[in-house]
């Protein structure tokens, strides 16, 4: 990354914590813990021990039984395994599933695939602030409903869903509840010993671990199982075949251990930065926050502004690295489907910028973002046609 870059895209991925890198290096260095953990020789057993230690660290982060955690390549694979695996396991009971259009593509595309395969999917619309209405969710329950998948923290808006309540009403009807916790794992408290969650997806690179490693939590209770979607080995309870990447797993475990100890400090830091950023830009005319501001993860601030095109806004923001709601590379030219689900029109969705920050973000970096945002909006409005909105 350029030295001048101001990285405010932690929701996309976080930098690896140096302590995580050190732990991974201990595996990768000569004489390190590199052997296949499935091997029964001494080196293999050392690797297996490292894998199980990391699994325990991850379980400790969530108050979970480590035997309930399956290593995967990340949240996308976890989502696929959870949704397709649970739907398959429960197919003999019924084929009705429920999710939301504001989920990550890893979820929506998987449900769309199941729809084409004979399942019936109810797409539950959020309110204008991105929250699901619990009573409306309940009204869609049917005798053949087998799975509900609703994310914990939305990756674009940071909106937090009430997964406690959702889990309760699902469990009361013996409906499996899956949540994509890619944006909350390691960042918000999640006690799987208490929360009525059956399936939970996570990835390490969102909480200062390495990319390419994640996990799926599968609750140990009757009727809660998934069928494998890949075949070829007996690893991970035969649910996720393939040789385990020891160095990545050790990195994920170390990141989880660090997160468990530093989560409250990280959260307070993020809240301070978010408030500083919003206070610095809320004076921009016609700016608005996307998503419910009260029920939101502090590490994400998503804003739209009228009369400004998103891709140009992104270039004007440089050297700030944030995420845009415009589909700059897309041939469709479509704006964020999440923001349009919240009722934003194309122009507002196009102008959206998601700022996300974390452990290493400084107040000075936030101040750069404030200064660049003002400059970019002023610059682009100065060259825009006088009627800002195009119908």
């Amino acid at each position, binding site marked *: 990354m350029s030295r001048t870059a101001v990285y405010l895209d932690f*929701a*996309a991925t976080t930098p690896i914590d140096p302590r995580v890198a050190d732990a991974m290096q201990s595996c990768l260095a000569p004489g390190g813990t590199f052997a296949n953990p499935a091997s029964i020789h001494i080196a293999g057993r050392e690797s297996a021990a490292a894998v199980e230690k990391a699994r325990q660290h991850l379980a400790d982060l969530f108050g979970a039984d480590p035997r309930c955690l399956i290593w995967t390549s990340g949240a996308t694979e976890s989502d696929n395994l959870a949704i397709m695996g649970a739907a398959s396991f429960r197919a003999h009971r019924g084929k009705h599933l429920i999710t939301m259009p504001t989920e990550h593509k890893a979820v929506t595309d998987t449900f769309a695939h199941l729809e084409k395969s004979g399942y019936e999917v109810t797409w539950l619309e959020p309110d204008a602030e991105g929250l699901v209405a619990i009573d409306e969710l309940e009204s869609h329950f049917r005798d053949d409903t087998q799975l509900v998948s609703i994310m914990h923290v939305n*990756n*674009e808006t940071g909106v937090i869903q009430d997964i406690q309540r959702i889990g309760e009403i699902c469990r009361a009807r013996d409906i499996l509840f899956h949540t994509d916790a890619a944006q909350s794992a390691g960042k918000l408290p999640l006690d799987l010993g208490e929360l009525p969650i059956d399936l939970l997806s996570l990835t390490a690179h969102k909480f200062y671990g390495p990319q390419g490693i994640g996990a799926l939590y599968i609750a140990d209770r009757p009727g809660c199982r998934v069928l494998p979607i890949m075949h070829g080995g007996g690893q991970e309870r035969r649910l996720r075949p393939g040789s385990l990447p020891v160095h990545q797993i050790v990195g994920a475990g170390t990141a989880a251990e660090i997160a468990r100890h530093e989560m409250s400090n990280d959260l307070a830091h993020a809240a301070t930065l978010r408030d500083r950023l919003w206070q610095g830009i809320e004076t921009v005319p016609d700016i608005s926050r996307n998503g419910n501001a009260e029920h939101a993860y502090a590490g994400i601030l998503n804003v739209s502004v009228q*009369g*400004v*095109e998103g*891709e*140009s806004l*992104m*270039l*004007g923001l440089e050297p700030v690295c944030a*995420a*845009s*709601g*415009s*589909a*700059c*590379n*897309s*041939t*469709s*030219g*479509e*704006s*964020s489907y999440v923001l349009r689900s919240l009722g934003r029109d*194309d*122009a507002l969705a*196009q102008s*959206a910028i*998601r700022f996300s920050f974390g452990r290493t973000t400084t107040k000075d970096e936030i101040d750069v973002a404030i200064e660049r945002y003002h400059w970019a909006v002023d610059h*682009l409005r*100065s*060259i*825009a*046609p*006088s009627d*800002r909105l*195009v*119908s």
Partner: protein
Amino acid sequence: MNTPTAYNEAVRRHFADPQHTGDLQEDYEQTLVADVSESLSGAHIVMSAGIRGGTIARMAYRVRGCPHLIAALELVCTTLQGQPLARLENFDSADITQELSIPAEKTGRILLLEDALATLWAQYASTED
């Protein structure tokens, strides 16, 4: 959320310091104005051409659009100023596309620019009829 495409130096220069934005202030023999937009991407162009002695004396534009479109408008204005009016007809944006390294998925935005020029020409032609 999505990641923006890379921009070459020409795009960055024109984006940061455009020279032809605004409205035409002087009196010309004829002032042509085109207003074109495309709702899906939100792009909107208002382009003006001041005509004097059968020549494009001055061009200006206002735009809401991506950096490539802003840079393309700058290049078009620079290219056409001082040129005979007939250059507006069937303007070929291939050179601009190449100079700015405009990716294929942005073709629609450039076509919008060509629409603006075609509108200017049509406006001129209608007054000559």
